[in-house]
């Protein structure tokens, strides 16, 4: 038996982009494989071990149906460390975008009577169901952060991920501010960094794909966007595209001042 950490890589409902990021580490993939004991990675390998205890399990995707929830809880039981990878797993992602209408209703409209054959639940992040030991957000996650995380985890440590806003990275890289210069609806001030301000680097406003930074001052962001002429519904749509389930983005907290 090898003493290498036993790893499982799984996806719930989602685009599988975060698992693909793992496969996209073309230069490092063979090293990762060498340093770990990958027990199961259904997207990339057959014949995985679906029962053994795991040291680390990486999960991407959102919980949108009871099947996802069962699978997640089962993985939690098997895993020592459970890592949520990607904005879907961490915040609910695009599937959790709108929580206004009942999924069951839409399902009926879409699938007709056959819809009854499967159940859906309101899309939610992993942390709504199980304890999550580490969250790596991003839609998709950044390769560099993934590799950092893997290196730290193999070393028995949890990685320290950025805990500040995209603006910080935007300014470090000296991109002109789109909010100020162009009046774009940029979510950089409230979105957690780690992407090196990818969108502003292409002259595009941040759409918040990494989810909110801790203690984001949402109400100030909303106020300043209103001053720039955006309608409340446009602002709300934008704010809740990737992290509709986040507490800080619920309507009540948009009004109150947050921890000034």
């Amino acid at each position, binding site marked *: 038996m090898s003493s290498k950490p036993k790893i499982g890589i799984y996806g719930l409902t989602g685009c599988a982009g975060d698992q693909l990021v793992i496969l996209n580490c073309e230069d490092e993939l063979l090293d990762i494989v060498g340093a770990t004991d990958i027990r199961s990675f259904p997207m990339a390998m057959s014949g995985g071990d679906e029962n053994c205890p795991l040291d680390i399990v990486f999960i991407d995707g959102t919980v949108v149906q009871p099947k996802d929830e069962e699978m997640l809880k089962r993985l939690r039981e098997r895993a020592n460390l459970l890592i949520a990878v990607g904005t879907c797993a961490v915040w609910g992602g695009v599937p959790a975008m709108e929580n206004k209408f009942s999924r069951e209703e839409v399902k009926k409209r879409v699938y007709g009577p056959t819809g009854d054959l499967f159940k859906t639940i309101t899309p939610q992040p992993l942390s709504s169901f199980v304890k999550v030991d580490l969250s790596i957000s991003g839609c998709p996650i950044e390769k560099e952060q993934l590799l950092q995380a893997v290196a730290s985890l*193999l070393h028995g440590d949890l990685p320290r991920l950025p805990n500040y806003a995209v603006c*910080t990275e935007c300014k470090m890289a000296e991109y*002109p501010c789109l909010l100020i210069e162009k009046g774009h609806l940029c979510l950089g001030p409230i979105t957690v960094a780690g992407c090196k301000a990818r969108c502003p680097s292409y002259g595009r406003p941040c759409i918040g794909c990494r989810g909110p930074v801790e203690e984001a001052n949402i109400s100030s962001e909303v106020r300043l966007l209103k001053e720039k002429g955006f309608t409340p519904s446009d602002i709300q749509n934008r704010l809740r595209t990737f992290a509709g389930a986040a507490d800080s983005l619920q309507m009540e907290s948009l009004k109150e001042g947050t921890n000034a």
Partner: protein
Amino acid sequence: MKIITLPKENFAEFVGHLCSFGEIHAPIKRGDRSFVFAPVKDASEIELDCVRTILPLKKYFFRPMEVMFNFCAGEGYEIPSEVTDKRIVVFGAHPCDIHGLNILDMVFNGRYVDTYYLARKSKAAIIGLDCIPDDLCFCRSTRTDFVDTGFDLFLSDIGDKYLVRVGTSLGDDMVRAAESLFYEVQKEDRDAYKRKSIERRESFKTEIQLQDLPGIMDLEYESQVWQDVGETCLSCGTCSMVCPTCYCYSVFDELDLDGSSGRRKRRWDCCLFKDYALVAGGHNFRAKRSSRVKNRYFHKQRGFVSLYGRPSCVGCGRCKAQCPSGIDIVDVITKLRSETRV
């Protein structure tokens, strides 16, 4: 100080000579109305009228993110050669920019020296350039609108010539490398300089009263102003990143997949971040945003005075220009002064 003149028609040629002293960096345009210091190949690329760049010159010497050393188990540490290898010539530093660097020089010297900053700084030539202030500049109030140390050469526009002050022997070398382009100062040059100097002084539109500010700040420690600014502030870090004299940083290790090699890095930090004053075990010495905002102003306007006898703000206006939520340092200080609440 040696003072000479450079006719504007010789400017491009002079810039051409500078490349033998290092890679030339000067303000160029980025985006619709922003500027950055970046490498230039010749004088035509330089935006001489740029008022302020997004980032100040600190970015060259105190990098936004840098490897302090690489490590490998059993093999010790290796400092990246990038720290010390490159020579650059920075052209177009405004007086406030140079003051900013002078302040960082003080901070990074002292009982312990920051070898990264100092090594890079020692390999750079600084050529200053006068500027015309805009509404956001208040360097007259911070007394940083004029500079007399910290540059190798300093150019002041006096019409069809530049008046050139030579600050160091390196500056003199640069002049000598293109000796034929320079002339002695004539009477009309002196007159022109003085005239321009008054014109420039009169063009300042923004003033704040800073002399007794430390005392006022102590007095208004509990002011509502901090609460208000705390509510507006996004904690996005922009003001600190763009400030010429914000120098806080954080240190962290990065490990390679092999688990034994990696690097220690540092990156610019900002006292407005939630985790800035957090210690292990969870106690946060500045848990509220208002207390963090207050700290930024205190450090610049109050603490620095106690430590170095002057505020560290150089009145460049960057923090106001770049703050997404529009917080204006001048406004905050004015409010603090007029605060009457008990």
